[in-house]
C-alpha cells in the first residue's frame, strides 16, 4: 500500500477501536453533550458580556463547548490512548513492522480530526434544536479554518504531553489536571464577565483561551472580525512548540517494565 492508502487503512481500524472503547465515547462524545445540556439548562436565560457585546448564555455556551470538544477529541484523546498503547507495547510492536511511524501518527491525528468535526456537527445540531442557537452557515469556511488549526495544534500538544506521562494510570489524572482548571480559567465553563481580569491574564498565557476566542468569533457573527488571526497565531505557536517537543521526546517503547 502507498503511504496515503496506509494512513486510510490505519484510520479505519482506529475508528473502529475508538467507537468500541467506552472511555473514548464517554469523555469525547458524551461529556461535551452533557456539559452543553447542563450549562444551557442552568444559565440559559441569563445574558453574558463578551468581546464588548451582550449575548444570551446559550449563544455563549455552544461555541464554548464545541471548543472543549475539539480539545478533548484531539489533545485529551491522543494523550490518553497513545500512553495506553505505548505502555501495553502496541507502539513498540507497530515499530517492528514495515509501517512507517508517520503513518501511524497520521492515522491517529486523522481519527481525532474526524471526531472533532463530528462533534462540531453534533453540538451545533443540539445548539440549534434545543437552544435555538442557529448554525451560522455563512461562516462555515472560517469555522473549519479555526477548527483545523486548533485541532492540529492540540493534536501536537497531546502527542507531546505523552512524554510527560510515565504510566497508563497517570494518563487521566495528568491530562485532567492540566485541562480542567484551564477550561474554567479560560472562560469555557464560566462566562467571561464573571472572571476576574487577573485570571484572564493568567489564562492568556495558555492556548485554550486563545482558541476559544478565535472559535467564538468565527461562530458568533456580529463581532469585529470573523477570523481573529492574532488569537490563531498564538494557538499555532503553541502547536508548533508541541510538534517540536513531540518529535524530540515522543517514545514508542513502554516506560514501565
Amino acid at each position, binding site marked *: 500500500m502507498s503511504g496515503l492508502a*496506509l494512513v486510510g487503512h490505519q484510520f479505519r*481500524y482506529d475508528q473502529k*477501536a475508538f467507537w*468500541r472503547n467506552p472511555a473514548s465515547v464517554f469523555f469525547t462524545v458524551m461529556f461535551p453533550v452533557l456539559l452543553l445540556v447542563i450549562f444551557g439548562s442552568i444559565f440559559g436565560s441569563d445574558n453574558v458580556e463578551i468581546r464588548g457585546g451582550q449575548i444570551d448564555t446559550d449563544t455563549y455556551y455552544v461555541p464554548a463547548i464545541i471548543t472543549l470538544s475539539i480539545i478533548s477529541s484531539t489533545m485529551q484523546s491522543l494523550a490518553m490512548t497513545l500512553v495506553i498503547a505505548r505502555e*501495553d507495547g502496541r507502539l513498540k*510492536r*507497530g515499530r*517492528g*513492522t514495515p509501517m512507517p511511524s508517520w503513518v501511524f501518527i497520521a492515522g491517529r491525528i486523522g481519527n481525532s480530526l474526524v471526531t472533532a468535526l463530528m462533534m462540531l456537527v453534533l453540538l451545533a445540531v443540539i445548539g440549534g434544536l434545543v437552544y435555538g442557537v442557529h448554525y451560522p452557515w455563512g461562516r462555515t469556511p472560517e469555522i473549519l479554518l479555526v477548527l483545523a488549526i486548533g485541532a492540529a495544534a492540540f493534536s501536537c500538544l497531546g502527542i507531546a504531553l505523552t512524554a510527560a506521562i510515565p504510566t497508563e494510570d497517570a494518563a487521566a489524572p495528568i491530562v485532567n489536571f492540566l485541562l480542567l482548571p484551564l477550561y474554567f480559567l479560560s472562560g469555557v465553563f464560566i462566562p467571561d464577565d464573571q472572571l476576574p481580569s487577573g485570571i484572564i491574564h493568567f489564562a492568556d498565557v495558555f492556548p485554550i483561551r486563545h482558541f476559544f476566542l478565535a472559535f467564538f468569533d468565527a461562530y458568533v457573527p456580529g463581532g469585529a472580525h470573523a477570523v481573529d488571526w492574532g488569537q490563531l497565531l498564538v494557538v499555532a505557536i503553541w502547536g508548533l512548540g508541541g510538534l517540536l517537543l513531540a518529535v524530540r521526546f515522543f517514545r514508542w517503547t513502554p516506560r514501565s517494565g
Partner: protein
Amino acid sequence: MSYGETEAVRGIDLEVQTGEIFAFLGPNGAGKTTTVEILEGYRSRTGGEVRVLGEDPEQAGRAWRDRIGIVLQSNSLDPYLTVRESLELYAGYFSRPRSVEETIALVGLEEKADERARRLSGGQQRRLDVGMALVGDPELLFLDEPTTGFDPSARRQAWDVIAGLRELGKTIFLTTHYMDEAQRLADRVTIISGGLIVAAGTPEDLGEREKAAATIRYRDARGEEVSIETVDPVRELHRLTTAALEAGEELDGLEVTRPSLEDVYLDLTSTAEGAGE
C-alpha cells in the same frame, strides 16, 4: 543468515540457520531479551557485528521489516479489535501478506475469529499475537517467551502452533526459560546465563551431558552418606560392591541417579551466575 559476533552483555556468538527453530534458553535476567531486541533492531549495541537476513538491524529499513515477524514478551493487542480485524490491520502493513483466514486457521482461532481481543483467554491472546507476526508471511520469526505464565493445556496448544510453523519453512528465533520448551521445539539450543553462553548444541547434544555424569549414593559402614560423581557408573559400582563384599559390609541405601535435563540446565546456569559475580 548469521549474526556473527554480537556483544550483548558480555560478548556472545551465535548463528542461526535458515529454516531452523533456534532456542535461546536462559533464566530471567540472563540477557535474552537484550540480545533479541538487538537482533530485532529495537536496541542499539555498544559493539560487535550483527547480521540478520544479511542486514544490520540497526540500519535496516522497511524492506527488511517486511521479511521479519516479531512477538514481544508481553501481548500487545488492541483490546477493542476482533481477531480478524487485528490480523487485517497488520496484513495491510506488509507487501505480500498471508491470507487472514489462513492465518486464523494456522493459530487455531477459527471459533474466535469475530471475538474482540479483550474477551480472549490468555493463551488465545498469545496465539493472536503470534498470528499478527505471521500474517506478513515473514521469513524469520522472533518469539520472545511465547508461553510464559501459561497453564499446561494452553502451552501444549501454543507448542503445536509453533511446531506447525516448521512445515512452512520459517526460521524461528525462540527465547524461553523452559528447558522442556526448548527440547520439544528446537533444532538447536543455546543456553545463556549471566550474559554468557554456557552451552550450545542440539537438544540431543545437551542430552549427552546427562549421560556423562551419574551420581552414586550410599551409606558406608559407619553410617556416613557417601556421594560419588562418575562418568563410568558401571565400573565404579563394580569396584564399590566388590570392596563391600570382600569386607563383608553393606552399602545401605545404594542408588545410582542421573541428572535430568532440567538439572543439567540449572547446574549450567547457576555456575555461570556464580562466575559472573
